[in-house]
């Protein structure tokens, strides 16, 4: 077992998520690393990005000439609209989310549990004024919920856990987790490792994870003896 592995950078994590988004999907990206994902979807692969403040078909940040203060995303950054995009009001925008019309939502999180529970909005039940925004709607409503986050906290505590310790955003919602160390599916049997950072051993990954990991069959040979 070697420790000479290369964790993914934030950009690499975003790039890795982008790789898995097929053309034609309607996708909402949360604040933070998820927002970076759009930059790694090549323009010729048409993916339609949704922003909960009423933008469908969002494009990248504007250049100095096409900036419009009336066009922002949910993170309140200026964005653009692609050809074919449209504007809707908040109830219609959340009807898209809550009605199961989004193929995918990518969120950041504090913790994901092996049953798919996710905690991403409040760091403790004593945090009495946390800001939830649209996270609960997105987590409960999208056809697929993927989480992208660092595999552990700054002090090394695992974020993939047997049971969430932080207040939940949604129960049994996450399908897949992208971390700086691995890509992990949430299955009825728990976490299943799909992919690991180059040079990382399964044992080293398990050591950084609270919940029990399983290896996907396709992964068992190349990375693991």
């Amino acid at each position, binding site marked *: 077992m070697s420790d000479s592995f290369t964790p993914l950078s934030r950009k690499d994590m975003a790039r890795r998520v982008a790789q898995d988004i097929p053309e034609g999907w309607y996708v909402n990206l949360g604040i933070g690393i998820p927002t970076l994902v759009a930059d790694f979807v090549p323009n010729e692969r*048409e993916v339609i990005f949704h922003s909960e403040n009423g933008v469908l*078909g969002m494009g990248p940040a504007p250049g100095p000439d096409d900036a419009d203060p009336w066009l922002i995303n949910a993170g309140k950054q200026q964005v653009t609209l692609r050809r*074919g995009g*449209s504007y809707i009001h908040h109830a219609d925008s959340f*009807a*898209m989310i*809550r*009605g*199961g019309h*989004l193929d995918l939502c990518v969120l950041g999180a504090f913790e994901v549990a092996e049953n798919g529970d996710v905690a991403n909005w409040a760091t403790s039940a004593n945090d009495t004024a946390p800001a939830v925004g649209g996270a609960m709607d997105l987590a409960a409503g999208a056809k697929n919920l993927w989480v992208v986050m660092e595999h552990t906290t700054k002090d090394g505590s695992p974020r993939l856990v047997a049971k969430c310790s932080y207040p939940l955003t949604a129960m049994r919602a996450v399908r897949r987790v992208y971390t700086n160390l691995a890509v992990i599916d949430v299955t009825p049997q728990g976490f299943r490792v799909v992919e690991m950072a180059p040079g990382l051993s399964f044992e080293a990954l398990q050591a950084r994870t609270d919940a029990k990991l399983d290896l996907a069959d396709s992964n068992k040979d190349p990375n693991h003896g």
Partner: protein
Amino acid sequence: MINKTVRNLAEAMQGITDGATVLVGGFGAVGQPDALIEALIEQGATDLTIVANNAGTGRTGLARLMELGRVRRIICSFPRSVGSVVFEELYKAGKLELEIVPQGTLAERMRAAGAGVPAFYTPTGFGTLLTEGKPTAEFNGKPCVLEMALPGDVALIQAHKADRWGNLTYRRSGRNFNPVMAMAARLTIAQVDEIEPLGTLDPENIVTPGIFVDRVLRVTV
């Protein structure tokens, strides 16, 4: 490249299965997807539940589909109207199940399905034959009944202009149930007057965004 336009009516009908719940847009003749209804007759799916405002008139369109014995159940607000002869024959003969729903409750039940609301309370119909047996509750002194979302497997709708992403605009009172049904079905098929290049429809004026639409077919009348 996303391209929701289909080449012909047969392609538009692909995958509609026996037993499906089919939402059919239009109010009277206005905004009714006539070509798609004809295509559904051709396509052959049977044992259908039809959701529409009316129960067909004359012996064409929805009435023809019913006359062919392909409709098990109809959910509508206004079954009996001038010319609804097929409906009346079949219903009298016990060959058609009927669920009458107040028109606004019908629209709201489909909107609820599209918006992820599985059930909602409404005062409409409380204390009438149409809500017998439904759960009730009182809010601010107003007695209400609980109504369930009404999702479709398929929606057949009519619109004015479309683009290859499935964005739609309508004409005057041609909207009616069409935008609501587009939201409420897993497979939404739109018959349109014109297909415009992407980016031509004003993003401020798109009534049904393409996220609610799966297939678009230009039909020349």
